[in-house]
């Protein structure tokens, strides 16, 4: 396998002992300094996939390379260069924040000073507090601080901002951007679309163990149609105008929904038509596609079609 990325995943499968196949052939590559997001609903296979890439679980088949190495067989050389934030993991409740960080630092090859790592996540002022007293958000930031202690070249973040309030989340995003600027590579799972939109250089939407759309956020969204809706006027209504190619019209008892690849053209034609017939279009709403729509389209379609990039 041609190893070009910091992380290379090829045709990866992961089957659990009971026979359930959580990951059914996923391929992607992450370049240095890039943030790649695995996006998907709960149960899409994100964590199952991530655990294999982190070297915490074996693949059933396929290849994984992190920094050019097998993360499971060569964990001794790989682990000192990566940082992992698990979706859920704990602390011995009777330790303080500093004691916990010091213990973790003691297990690392080249840790940064404990105070520095705590400051990076704004936990410096809580250094002497027992981990038992930390709020959910603070615990999450301590998770992150521990992952950063080893000065990782590659950071794996499994739902890093789950349970954080909006302000905290912004802080974590800022920190992640700073890490990216210094050349850290990040593989992140999230079901927050906003998070992927905000941070990801590239992303893949996972559904039922498959990677169904992969690309930059713009590419993934770009494939998705924009949506226009309005309430169907009461009384006799003239025929709709001629609309650009590829527009679909769907009429429910209450409203009309149009999906189009040419938002501007479709809106112009509609408004011209309404004006010329003196129609009032109530609740007129036009918006270009968002990641959310791309995501929902995947989740709703229930299709098991993997995208071209994944098959390659």
């Amino acid at each position, binding site marked *: 396998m041609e190893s070009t990325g910091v992380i290379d995943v090829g045709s990866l499968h992961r089957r659990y002992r009971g026979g359930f196949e959580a990951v059914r052939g996923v391929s992607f590559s992450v370049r240095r300094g890039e943030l790649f997001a695995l996006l998907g609903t709960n149960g899409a296979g994100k964590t199952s996939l991530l655990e294999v890439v*982190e070297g915490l679980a074996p693949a059933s088949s396929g290849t994984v390379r992190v920094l050019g190495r097998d993360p499971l067989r060569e964990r001794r050389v790989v682990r000192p260069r990566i940082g992992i934030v698990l979706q*859920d*993991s*704990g602390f*011995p409740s*009777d*330790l303080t924040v500093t004691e916990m960080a010091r213990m973790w630092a*003691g*297990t690392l090859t080249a840790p940064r000073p404990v105070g520095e790592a705590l400051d990076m996540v704004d936990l410096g002022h809580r250094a002497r507090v027992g981990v038992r007293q930390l709020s959910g958000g603070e615990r999450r930031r301590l998770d992150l601080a521990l992952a950063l202690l080893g000065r990782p070249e590659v950071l794996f973040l499994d739902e890093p901002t789950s349970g954080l309030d909006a302000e905290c989340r912004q802080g974590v995003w800022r920190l992640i951007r700073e890490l990216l600027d210094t050349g850290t590579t990040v593989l992140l799972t999230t079901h927050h679309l906003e998070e992927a939109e905000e941070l990801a250089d590239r992303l893949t939407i996972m559904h039922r163990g498959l990677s169904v759309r992969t690309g930059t956020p713009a590419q993934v969204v770009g494939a998705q149609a924009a949506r226009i809706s309005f309430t169907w006027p009461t009384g006799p209504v003239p025929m709709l105008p001629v609309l650009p190619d590829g527009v679909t019209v769907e009429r429910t008892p209450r409203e009309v929904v149009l999906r189009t690849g040419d938002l501007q053209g479709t809106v112009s034609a509609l408004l011209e038509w309404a004006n010329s017939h003196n129609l009032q279009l109530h609740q007129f709403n036009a918006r270009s596609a968002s990641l959310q729509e791309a995501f929902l389209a995947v989740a709703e379609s229930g299709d098991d079609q993997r995208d071209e990039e994944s098959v390659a």
Partner: protein
Amino acid sequence: MTTRTRPEASTVRRPRGSVRRVGALARAEALLLRRNPIALLNALGTPLVGVVLLNAFPPQGDAAPLPSAGIAVTLTAFALLFTLYYNLVTTLVARREELVLKRLRSGESSDGEILLGAAAPAVAITWWQFSVGVVAGMVLVGMGVPVNPILVVAAVVLGTVVFVLLAAASTAMTRSVEMAQLSTLPVVVISMVLGGLFPVGMLPGPVQWVAQVLPLTRVVDLLWLGLTGATRDGTTAGEWAATGGIPAALLVLAAWVVAGALASRRFMRWEPRT
């Protein structure tokens, strides 16, 4: 001229990887023990109370009053069963249920290092209790200087390794810290009954044979031999040696080390059941 230069070490020289990692984990575990005064008092105080009681009320009615090495051997056996085995099952299950083991496995430490780090304080206290027993034996009941210190150390070290591994394997059938009181019973009870604390000679034949292949029995035998030169039933080291007794005892313990290692590898659970 070309010279090959080694990449410069980016950090100050620190202890070698494995030692440093186990040390860091053990320090944290010791800190947790210090934060738990009852556990600490139990661990450090039990042997002292034990010495006083065993000295004041030597077991009666049996073939003989408690012989000279009785205090040392009894304390060591109890330390292996309770201070080490039972406490370590509790600790490992607590760390597992707190999702600490799961976290540790995502770092640089190997499984063995994590186990060793968690066990280190319990091992230290076990050896403290053993030491108290030996000193008490020499000072209080005239046990004399150990006849064969190497055998004594071998017995304690092998016994320690076996019970650490059995503790790791026992976490598989222990779903909660409270459950540990129940799940450790088989090992504790069988060891207490057949482990050589009571004379095996009183037991029926097949049971005697089972007793001979149990780890605690052989630790107790070797301790007696090493401390006094004879086992509790009066068999001298010479008679033992003639029948290959010492190598056999060591072999039984070595077999338990292998079995314990395999069992803990296969059965130890690192994450709570979902």
